[in-house]
């Protein structure tokens, strides 16, 4: 079980190899990709930034929770930091399990929790030259929002 960051393109072949297990009958992955639009704006690139010392702890807690809830063999999540172009992979989640059902459930749980809880921020660069931090700039105009509420309208992922 591990959560880590990658400065360069995620090596999915090596990541998959970490989850191989003779007792695993199923393997599910999720890849988050950089998409060309978000909330009605044309996106040309993304920048990811993370508070890594806390993020790896929170990520490890999420993976531990996933394996406690679902009987999986192994789970791994790798998140990119730095500048990404359209179609680049932003995040990779892999889960191996005895049966496929747990693998699907755990994979979904992990990516959802990572988006909510891990201190990673995303700056979108737009076609018109503008840029903005997702979930931060719009919220700044609505200071009454709680942190959770701020998350709640930030769920439309542009890399999923």
């Amino acid at each position, binding site marked *: 079980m591990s959560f880590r960051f990658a400065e360069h393109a995620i090596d999915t072949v090596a990541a998959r190899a970490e989850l191989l297990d003779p007792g695993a009958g199923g393997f599910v992955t999720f890849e988050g990709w950089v998409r060309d639009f978000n909330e009605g704006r044309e996106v040309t690139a993304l920048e990811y930034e993370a*508070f890594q010392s*806390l993020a790896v702890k929170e990520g490890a807690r999420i993976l531990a929770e996933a394996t406690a809830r679902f009987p999986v063999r192994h789970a791994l999540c790798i998140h990119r930091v730095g500048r990404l172009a359209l179609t680049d992979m*932003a*995040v990779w989640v892999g889960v191996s399990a005895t049966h496929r059902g747990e693998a699907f459930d755990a994979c979904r749980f992990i990516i959802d929790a990572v*988006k909510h809880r891990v201190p*990673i921020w*995303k700056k979108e660069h737009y076609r018109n030259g503008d840029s903005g931090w997702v*979930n931060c700039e719009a919220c700044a105009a609505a*200071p009454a929002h709680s942190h959770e509420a701020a*998350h709640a309208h930030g769920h439309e992922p542009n890399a999923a």
Partner: protein
Amino acid sequence: MTARPTSPTPTAAPRSPRPAAAPVFGLVLAGGLSSRMQRDKATLEYRGKSQLERAVELAAKHLPEVFVSVRAGQAADPSRARYPLIVDSVPGEGPIVGIRSALAARPEAAWLVLACDLPFLSDAALSQLLAERDPAASATAFRSAHDSLPEPLCAIWEPKSAAELAAYQAADGRCPRKFLMRHGAKILEPRDRRALDNINTPDEYREALRSLVGEASAAMQLKIQYYALMREQAGRSDETLETTASTPADLYSELKARYGFTLSREQLKVAVNSEFASWSQQLAAGDSVVFIPPVAGG
């Protein structure tokens, strides 16, 4: 004798060590002449609060009721009139009169008596006094760290001391310290030795003020890291800051004012030393603080 406002007498003191012990009320002595100070000691201020206010507030944290002891002519004094008062009801002078008047006003109660010139008085000292109280003694008092004599004006006086004090005063006794030395008082070694330092002169007041202000504004160094929108608004990714903020909440107010952060505190989380923390956590020198804007991984 006046004890006002009148309130129901508690049947048991919630913090008494033994079930049979008398309830303890607080009595802050503010009837002194303050002759050496050359001004009213009760109104001396520390960190924006008068000495009297501080003593009453501290006592009220530990006791169900707190009264202020005054001489007959002081009951209308604005700095005193806001509190429930016990006006001297027995003849004579000095603190014994105040203590006896309180014992007479509530014969069923013991009184935790506090001078109002103890700027360093602490929760720890009052907790110790109450925890180690001996209701069977005439009084429970601390031993002074300076002269090893019992300190009568940060002490618990039990109901039985009323008759003993009356007899002592009738025999021309005036000094509550001597009374404690002669009668069966339980004497405690103060764990907070500075709590009983009193101040009587303008020099001592200035000294205490300097000391307390120094503690209150003790600046410390914190390491702050900024991410994402806040990094851009602060124009830096980290800094070491000299600050008097003692919690993340105070620190954010200070930095929001400095950098004009657009995010409100309600939108943020905070981490101290790379772990999520509460906004009211006490910060320590050298702590590393990160404010966490709404996240957007994936």
